[in-house]
Structure formats: structure tokens, C-alpha cells
């Protein structure tokens, strides 16, 4: 992994709901994360890095390749555009890009067990149902599983 002088972990957040995205970003930054946001899968792969928000799959994917550091991906299931979180994970893993081993955490509104299982099969690390978790607890949990010791 790339060493950086800054030992903050970098997390890419892909979430289409602006108000939630803002909350997530604020809270993650408070918890010592470097945050890159995205509202679509499309943009996560294309747009240049600086402080862009991504909410569709393609952008998210292209965006990713240009990043210097990604330690985790926070992914919503419903996104802007035709593609959803499943498309993102499928393409992301298939691409075999430099970040394809980065852990993915799905944070979604949908609690359908089919969806949870499909994500698990695709190799997603954990699935959280939004309304059932405190934001703080999701972040704690992610931090824990990343072995984030700096605080």
C-alpha cells in the first residue's frame, strides 16, 4: 500500500441523497477520515479528484483510478442514474484496478435479505441498514474493521 505522510485513512463515499452524504462526510471527518464523496457509480470512475461528489457508477469507477489512496469504500445501494451499488461492485471487482482489494461497506435503505446475500456473494465486507444504525456506530464499526489505530 502507498505510504503517505498523512496517516488519515481515505474513504470514498458513494451516496445519492445529498443530505445524508453531507452528514456522512461531516461525521467521517470528525472521526479522522479523509473523505471523497460521490453520488453515482459513473462519476466514481471519471471525475478528477478534488472534492467532487459522486453519485453514479461510471464516475465513481473512473474517479477511483486517479486516487492516490483509498482505504475503504462506503456504498449506497440506490444511486443516481441507471446503475446501482450492485453494478458498482461488479464492475469494480471485474476491473481489477489498483484498488480492487479495498474493503467495501454497503450502507443502504433496503433490508431485503436477497440483496444482502447478493452483496455478500460479491465480496462486500459488511452491510448496514441505514435507519437501524446510528451513524456513529457504523463509523466505529468500519474503523474497527480497518484496524484504524490513529485517533
Amino acid at each position, binding site marked *: 500500500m502507498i505510504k503517505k505522510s498523512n496517516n488519515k485513512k481515505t474513504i470514498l463515499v458513494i451516496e445519492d441523497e445529498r443530505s445524508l452524504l453531507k452528514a456522512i462526510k461531516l461525521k467521517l471527518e470528525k472521526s479522522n477520515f479523509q473523505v471523497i464523496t460521490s453520488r453515482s457509480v459513473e462519476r466514481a470512475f471519471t471525475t478528477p479528484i478534488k472534492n467532487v461528489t459522486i453519485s453514479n457508477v461510471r464516475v465513481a469507477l473512473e474517479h477511483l483510478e486517479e486516487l492516490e489512496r483509498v482505504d475503504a469504500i462506503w456504498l449506497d445501494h440506490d444511486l443516481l442514474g441507471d446503475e446501482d451499488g450492485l453494478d458498482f461492485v461488479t464492475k469494480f471487482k471485474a476491473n481489477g484496478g489498483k484498488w480492487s482489494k479495498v474493503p467495501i461497506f454497503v450502507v443502504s435503505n*433496503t433490508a431485503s*435479505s436477497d440483496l444482502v446475500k447478493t452483496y455478500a456473494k460479491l465480496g462486500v465486507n459488511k452491510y448496514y441498514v441505514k435507519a437501524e444504525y446510528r451513524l456513529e456506530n457504523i463509523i466505529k464499526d468500519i474503523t474497527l474493521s480497518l484496524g484504524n489505530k490513529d485517533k
Partner: protein
Amino acid sequence: MDKKGKITYVNQAFEKMVGWKSKEVLGRYVVEVVPRESEKGETVLFNERILTKVLSGKVVIADLINPFYYIRKDKSRFPASSIVNPILLDGKIIGVVETFRDITKEKEIDKAKTEFVSLASHQLRTPLSTISWYTEMLLAGDAGKLSAEQTKYLDEVYRGNQRMISLVNALLSVSRMDLGTFILEPEPTNVAKLVENVVIEQMPQIDRKKLNFSSRIEKNIPLIQADPKLLSMVVQNLLSNSVKYTGEGGKIEISLSLDLKKRVLLFKISDNGYGIPKNQQAKIFTKLFRADNVRGKDTEGTGLGLYIVKAIIDNSGGKVWFESKEDKGTTFYVTLPFNLLLKKNN
């Protein structure tokens, strides 16, 4: 029908609805002419037919959660609603009159309504998450320190929102059950552990009300084929009801045991709480029904918990029932069959 259940008269609506002519069916057993089956297509046995029960003098309360179907002459079927009344002569049952109708349309409307509820509840979740997360951040002081009074008000907002989230979740579960998209996913499950986990989750509420809680969980309960998520929901609902509807300092006891003779796992939970008024006990598993005595005391219940419990247990091949006395307490019993599973695990 006469007292043996043989048809003595049918009207024109009958002929139209099931396709049999009057002269073809007179004198024949109605249960043979118009077979009845469950939603899944299982034939309802002769002894289980309401008609048979009414003829033997029993009072039957139909189970409206599980609809049934009547089969026409051409073997097609339709969902039906029926009422069976005994004909009495000098106090003796000499026959019955069955009135039934085709409820296809009602069911379609009901389905459309359920789909709407499901969709609407789902849409409600995003704004609810927004409220929940921002309130959480305010309370955590992320936007600056709050005064004691502000904290108090926000606490109310937060709790009200949590209640709305659980109501929306319950509505979603109910609509999935009603639509039949709530599929059981059984797997070998450690029910003892599952019950313990639910208890741990609710310990804070139990402690807050200073309830005297005890549990007896039999050792060596084998893995049971069950859907752990749904079964947890059953235990959660029953336990949280007991906690909610028992006064401060009251008593709650739970037990989990095997009945090897009946090949069932028995979960029992009793409290010495408010109880269910006798005249409302028949309705207690009905959707959105809440007994009068608790409506006055607590505003948090949704009236959906026991409906969900019953739907899950019925679909799992188990049984749920209760004994209750107002102001004395309530005991709920749940059984789950385990014959199917032992094969797999031993």
C-alpha cells in the same frame, strides 16, 4: 345441507360461481362437490372443514389471515369467504346453511393496497434516516455544545423518530407477509443462543423498569431448522410486549424447553403485567388492534407485533397461543416443530 353435509338446495349464484347445476349436486356431499384448499393448494381435510365443525355443534372463529379457495367444476379455483350457520330444530342441529362469495376482486384491491404500503414505507426510510443522523450529530455536540434544555428537546425528537422507524419497519414486514414475499429462509439455528441474544438486547429496558427477570433455558437444545431473523423477531416482539405491558417492579419469566413426545420446541414467556381484557382476547392477533387497557397506558405500541408473530409462526408450522387475565398477567406459548431438522443434524 342436511346434518350429514349432503346438499339439499343450491341457488343460481352457486351454479354460476362453481359451475355445477343444481340437479348434478343434490344429495351429494358438499365437501366432495366443492373441495376447499389453502393458498398453497393443500386440500382442507373433511374434519377441518368449518361445515363439519358447525354440524358437530362447535363454534368456529375463522382464521382470516389464511385465505382459502373453493374449486369449481372445471377444476379452476377462486378465493372465497364463507359463513356457515346451523339450522336448529328444538335445539338440535338438523343441517346448515352455507353462504359464500367469490372474493377475487377484494383480494386484488387488498394486494394493491399492500403494495402501496410497502412502497410508501420504503420511501419514508430515507428522510427518517436523515432526521435520525442529524439529530444524533446535534446531540453528540458535533455542531456545538447544547444547553440542557436543548438536549432534552432533541432527545424527544430523536426518540419520536426512532418510534417512527420501528413503525415503518413493522409496516414493511407486515406488507411483505401480506404479499407473500416474506420468504422463510430456514437454516440450522441455535434457538437457545438466539433467545439469549434477544434478552441481552432488551436488558436495558428491563433494568429501567426494575423488572424481576428470570429465564430457564434447557441445556442441550439441538440446532433447529428455523429462520433466525424471523424467529428473533418473534422473541423480540413477545419480550418487548411483556416489558412494555408490565408495571414497574413486575415479574417476567421465560423458558425454552424441548417436548420430545410432541417433537416440538416450546418457548414460554409470562409476566404479571396488565393482561389482555377477556372480551378483547379474540382480536389480539389482528392487525393494528390494541387492547383498551394498554392504549391508555402506553402510546408506543403499533398493534402489529402480535400479528407479525402469528404470521411467522403459522408459516413455520408452529403454534402460538396465550393465557391472560386482566391485571394479573399474560403467558404466551410458542411451539416449533423440530422433526424435520434432526435428520439433517444427526
